[in-house]
């Protein structure tokens, strides 16, 4: 049941990334592992970084949409982060709009969307007023 993809846990957030050549079996194992952990560990948010993917085909797109749907049923927000411009263009041309999937520019912004803030940032805001 191990997909071979790293899944990191940061508080109540799971952070993972997809590598290229994602096949059927890996995708299923990954979905399985992720959902189990969401349910077991009371996860509130999931971030999947796809900045290493140079090609997202309809299969990967469907996997992502299904993951988002499953996550929503379990009360989790799922965010897909780091899509490359070329990938976004191709997906739009194919008419795959990843309905129901929240996107973020990179993993950092995805963390912010889930309510995380860098300590430095809070300090940085105050001097800006001067």
């Amino acid at each position, binding site marked *: 049941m191990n997909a071979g993809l790293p899944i990191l846990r940061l508080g109540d957030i799971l952070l993972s990334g997809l590598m290229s050549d994602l096949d059927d079996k890996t995708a299923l194992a990954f979905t399985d592992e992720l959902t189990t952990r969401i349910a077991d560990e009371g996860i509130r948010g999931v971030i999947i970084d796809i900045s290493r993917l140079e090609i997202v085909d309809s299969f990967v797109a469907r996997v992502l949409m299904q993951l988002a749907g499953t996550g929503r049923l379990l009360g989790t927000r799922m965010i897909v982060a780091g899509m490359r411009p070329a990938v976004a263009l191709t997906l739009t041309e194919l008419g795959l709009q*990843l309905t129901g999937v929240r996107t973020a520019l990179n993993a950092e912004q995805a963390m912010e969307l889930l309510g995380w803030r860098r300590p430095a940032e809070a300090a940085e805001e105050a001097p800006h007023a001067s």
Partner: protein
Amino acid sequence: MLGTDDSQVRTVLARVLEEDRTALAHDWAGPETGDGGSPQLRREAVELVEALRQALTGTLPVSRIVEQDPAVRDALTSLSERRARAGAQPSATAMAILALKRTMLGAIERHTEDSALRYRAALLVNELLDSAGVLTFEVYSTGRERIIREQHSQMLELSTPVVRLWRHVLAVPLIGTLDSARSQVVMNSLLESIQANEARVAIIDITGVPTVDTAVAHHLLQTVSAVRLMGAECVISGIRPSIAQTITQLGIDLSHIVTRGSLADALATAMQLLGDSGRPGAVSG
């Protein structure tokens, strides 16, 4: 028309060109081409006459000399290109090439008394120089088309700047008609800039777009969804009242897209969106 292609005529013609080469080039380059016979032009004329002579002594049939002989082709191409750059009309260039006929016929007359031979030589000259004239015209129009294509691609790059309005806010002021080639360029540069600037909001300003039809709207929708896939929000601004009416009349559904009347309103909206995304500090930055 194999009748014009016998070796006797070709030999005679080649001899005429050989012996009267300079005279021919001089006669022709002087008055006929109408630009005073510059040394440049005379050299080109000599080149062309020489290339024609060599082609005639070769084995290529007359009907294919202009098309396939590299030297003749080069001479004609450079002549046509130079005249085009000098601002000559393509018809004038073609006429100049055709004027070479008269010069050549005159030379043939001086060379032979045999009228049958003269007639066949005239036919051959005709065939040869007609296709040469056509080639100069073709070169001219290909050159023009290349210039048009280059300018078109330059225009594409010029007309789609992506500007940074605020921290994490980008804007694309679109000017002119939005066709699929342009929207592709816009999308590309916008998405690249979103990644480079870590933008959260992209504003597409269509104040300069004269009309919005279903095709343009389709391109806009595509851009918006690509921007969303990148994880940024997209606001469309600069929708004039007449365009808003057209969009409604065409029944185009833009309801899931944030639209604003002016760029200023769009910027205000962008600030709100930035505030919502959990970074109120960004607004003051």
